[in-house]
Structure formats: C-alpha cells, structure tokens
C-alpha cells in the first residue's frame, strides 16, 4: 500500500514501509521510549525475519492520502506517560510530514508496557 501524490515531474508514491521506518526511527529517538513492540505474535515473527528493527510496532493506514499512524511502545518507568505520548505524537507527525510531504492526520500512541 502506498500514498500517492504528484507534481510537475510526475507521480510520487511512498510505501507504507518507508513511512513505518521513519515513524519507528523517530519514535525510538524520543525520550522515555524504551522500545517498540508489535501488537501480536504473527507480526513479531515476520518482523524478526525481515529484521525491520525500526518498523516494528508501527502500523500505517491511510484514507484518501491522509496518513494515520499507530505506535505501540514500551515506556521507561518514571516518566509521565501523557507528556511522553504528547511529545511522541508531535515529533512523529512533524518528521513524517516533513519527510513525505503528505498530511499526517492522526498519531495514536498505545503504551503497551513499562520497563522498570
């Protein structure tokens, strides 16, 4: 699945994978985020095989070229979840928009666990 746009020179299509990698990479960089985890076992197994370290735990959907991002993450113990989630959303939205040039509609943060 890809998001598409075009300009004078021609079409541009950006695959979900590319977006996922960017979003994952940026998310890991955020303070308080320890790791990203996949929602279910099937995804984890596939991601292990593909060795997509940065892309795991991030799901991308899009409607009419607007991107919706879901991030499943484990946060560090002791941080304010709401503060981290807020900064995570902002950072991911900014980076993905900057990178792809497309509109990020929503970033959902799912805190799966806490690392002590």
């Amino acid at each position, binding site marked *: 699945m890809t998001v598409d746009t*075009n*300009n*004078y*020179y021609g079409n541009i299509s950006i695959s979900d994978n590319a977006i996922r990698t960017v979003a994952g990479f940026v998310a890991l960089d955020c303070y308080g985020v320890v790791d990203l985890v996949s929602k279910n076992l099937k995804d984890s197994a596939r991601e292990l095989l593909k060795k997509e370290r940065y892309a795991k735990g991030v799901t991308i959907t899009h409607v009419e070229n607007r991107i919706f991002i879901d991030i499943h993450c484990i946060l560090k113990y002791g941080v304010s979840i709401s503060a981290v989630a807020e900064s995570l959303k902002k950072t991911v939205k900014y980076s993905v928009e900057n990178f792809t*040039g497309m509109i990020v509609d929503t970033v959902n943060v799912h805190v799966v666990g806490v690392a002590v």
Partner: protein
Amino acid sequence: MQKTITGATFRKMLLAGASLLEQNKDYVDSLNVFPVPDGDTGTNMFLTIKSAVGEVNKCMGNDMASLSEAFSKGALRGARGNSGVITSQIFKGFCSVTKDCKEISTKDFAKAMQEGAAIAYKAVTKPKEGTILTVIRVMAENAVSLAKRHDDFEVFLAKVCETGEEILKQTPEMLPVLKKAGVVDSGGRGILVIFTGFMRYINGEEDLEYTFEDEVKPQSVEDVIADINQLGDIQFGYCTEYMIIHMYKKTTEADIDKLRERLMEIGDSVICIGDLSLVKVHVHTNEPNKALAYALELGELFNLKIENMREQNRELKKKAQAAEEMKEIGMISVAPGDGLGQIFKELAVDEIILGGQTMNPSAEDIANAAEKVPARTIFVFPNNKNIVLAAEQANDVTNKNLIVIPTRSVPEGIAAAIAFNPDASVEENQNAMTEASRAVRSGSVTYAVRDTHVDGFDLHKGEIIGLDDKAILAKGNLVGETTEKLIEALIDDSVMNITLFYGEDVREDEAEELQASLAAKYPDCEVTIANGGQPVYYYLVSLE
C-alpha cells in the same frame, strides 16, 4: 424518445441550462437571504456557468471527452462565490463521468449526477443540509433509481427535476434562516434552474421561459431585517478568494491538501479545490495576508478578491435601520437659492432641490431627491408653474408615493410647508397644504431682459418690473420703489402679513430700509424680511 445524448446535443443542452439561468438570475438573487454578502447567488452561479459554456463554445470537437473537459475547466475558472464554487464542483464531478462516455444514457447521467454531488460535498469543509448540496444529492439519488426504470431522457429528466422541486420545497425546514425569510434555498433553486434548462432542451422546447410556482414576494432588505439583527457578529471578516496558477514544479498535490488544512486553521468557509494546473481558493478569515502567503508558497496568484464582510454587513444594517425609521410623510421642495433652501429646511422639508425660473430641475432630479427621503409618502412643492409638470412626471420614475402640491411660487410653497401637520393623515395634509398655498398672494420683482410691450406697460431693457404669478403690475427704475408699487397693486384689506425674501443682488440694509418704509405705509400689517438668496429676482413678495 431520446435514449442517448450525443456530443452535439450535450453542447446545446449545457447552453440551454446556462441561458435559462441567465433569464432567472435576478429571481435566484432575490432568494438570497444571507445578509453577509458573498455576492449574489444567482449572478455568481450564472457567471460560473457562463464561463463554462464559454469554454465549451471554444471547443472545436463534438466528442464528449473534450466537451466535458472544457465545461468542467471553464466552470472552475469562472467560479465565483460560494455557490459558484459548489456549482463548479458539481459539474466537475458530472463531467468526470461523462468524459468517459461516447454517448450518455440515463444511467450514465444519473451516475454523473451522483459523482457531482459527491465531489461537491467534498469541496465544502462543513457541508450544511438545506442548501444546494442537499438538492443535488437528493436529485442524484433519485436519478439513480429513476434511470433503472426510464431509459428515455424526456421522462427521466422531467422526473428528476420534479424530485428536485420537491426537495427544494423542503429546504426551509432544514435551514431555519430560510424559513424565517419564507424562501427556498437560492443555490438549490439555481442548480434546479440549470437542470430544468437541460430538460427543456431535451424535450425540444425552444422557448425557454421558466415560471416559478412558488411565486416569491420581492425580497428586499426590509423584509429580512430580522435576520440581519440576529446575525450577530461576523467571526471572520474578510472574504478572500483567489486562484493559484503556474504552480512551482516542486509543488505536489499533497501541498494543496496542506494548504487547505492551514486555511482551515485561520478561517472558515474554506474551499480549496483544483489540481496542479489550477487551484481555486475561497476562505473567510481575519488574516487574508496569511491566506495569500500560504498560497504563494505553491505558485502564482491570480484573480484575487478580498472583501471586508464586516463593512458590507454594517452597510446592510444601516440600510435596514433607515428602513425602520421610515416615516409616514416627507416633503421635498424646489428652491431657487440657498437662503430659501434654508428657510424650507427650517420648515422640516427633507430635501431641497435647487432650481427655479431659469434652472428647472428635471423629473429625474426630483425623483432622486424623493428616493433620498426616508418616507412612504412625499409631498413635492415645485414652487414654479414650469416645474409642476416635471414634478408630476417624477411620480412615474420613483416607486415612492409622490403627491405634488402645485405651488406656483416660493411663497406658496412656504405657506404649504407651514401648513404641514405631521400627525394628520396624508389626505388632510394635502388639503391643508393646497388651501394654504391658494391663500397666499405672491409677487416678484425682477428686471426686463428686452424692450417689449406687455400688459399695458412699455418696457425697456434693464427696467425693474414687479409681477404677480400672471401679469406685470408695476415698473420703475429703482428696486425699492417698484416693490412698493407692486405691493400696492397686490394688497387688499384681508392682508395681515407681508414677507419679503430678498435675492442675492440685494444688500441686507437695502432690504431693511424697504421694510421700514413698508411698515410705515401699512401700519395694520406685519412686515418681515428674510434672506432668500435667489438669483434673478430682487424680491419675492408674499402677502397673506
């Protein structure tokens, strides 16, 4: 029975739709209840479809693809105002379907309408029901089911228009503003007129007269006052409209979407549509500068229009207030000279038209003055027998109710103005004024312009003459002396007041001298003087 529409028919059908709207654009305008002007719905829609049809006319081929392309491009290019933009989007969707057809069947037509409705809904950030959107959507929905049963266009289009009329009638139920004003939605009416135009053409009607069942009383500002006052403050003050052309090469379609997002942050009523060749933007915002700056990041701007809606609203409010303060009776008067005008003003005459013996105002001048007066019935004092006719004619030029009191001289006019009673009815006033003006005996003093022999006087050029409203009664070489002679000829026992209005050629001390001598001569009468400032006439004399 017509089962398909070919390119040639399509072209003419579009033309018919446009021309029917042209004939009825004033009617559609009259339905416009929103006192925040985005311009007038009918006119905007017509200009949009006119531009579209213009593009179609330029199109050489008769194939559906190029005709559709031209029509939708033209509509987008010419789109004006909210309603125009929505119309252009309806046709954009419509044409995106028709361009793939060789010939249009009823099913294609229904599909095209549905696509048009869908695109139009998308164009508006917050679609409201009870508007043009509802009308086109319901028409499209019905068209789809109708197309299954009818494959001949005559019946199909007639039924589609019928359903359109039905839903249009329901629009007042959906939008309270419409209900209050007692009208149906203007944009909905407009789009229906266009489709009716299509239907008329398909049915082979050359004569495109369109009459409306729901005859609407002529709408004017006065009728929608309630809405204006309830409108409250306008949140976003500038209606900003522009097109972006010659997009930079790096600009992507996603940038257009982003522009829309950013515009929505600074305003409402956002419409931002188009593709990389042309983007049409419409936004109500308090920061038109930002709206323009954002767009400049994408490409060049074209056809910019920024209107201050607050000011427009204020003007409407002012008009509405003026209408509220409409009084029952007003007066206008013709006066030669500022001084006389001033005297009339003091007598509560609303408008003064400068004019008189040598400068008769036209019927139009009088009508214009009448328009300015915020009153339902207006009395006109022509104050000159040469102007009475013009004043009577003015009645045909204006839609106000003019009543001409045939005053033949300024003193008569003044007497009539004095007789005005604001609490009395129009008829009572008319009678009182006419009577008062009759009771006055007036005379004037001027000079002879050439040698002649009239009324038993041998006149030489430059001699001073005194006359009443018909004949010369006195002559002499001095102004004061002639005036006295004139009064002598006019006066009788019933006269109590003598009033002299001295003209621009008479000095005040001269007039006072004359006043003193007259007062000595007629001890029973009260002699007053006033500065009339009239040209040509040295004195206007009023005896009553």
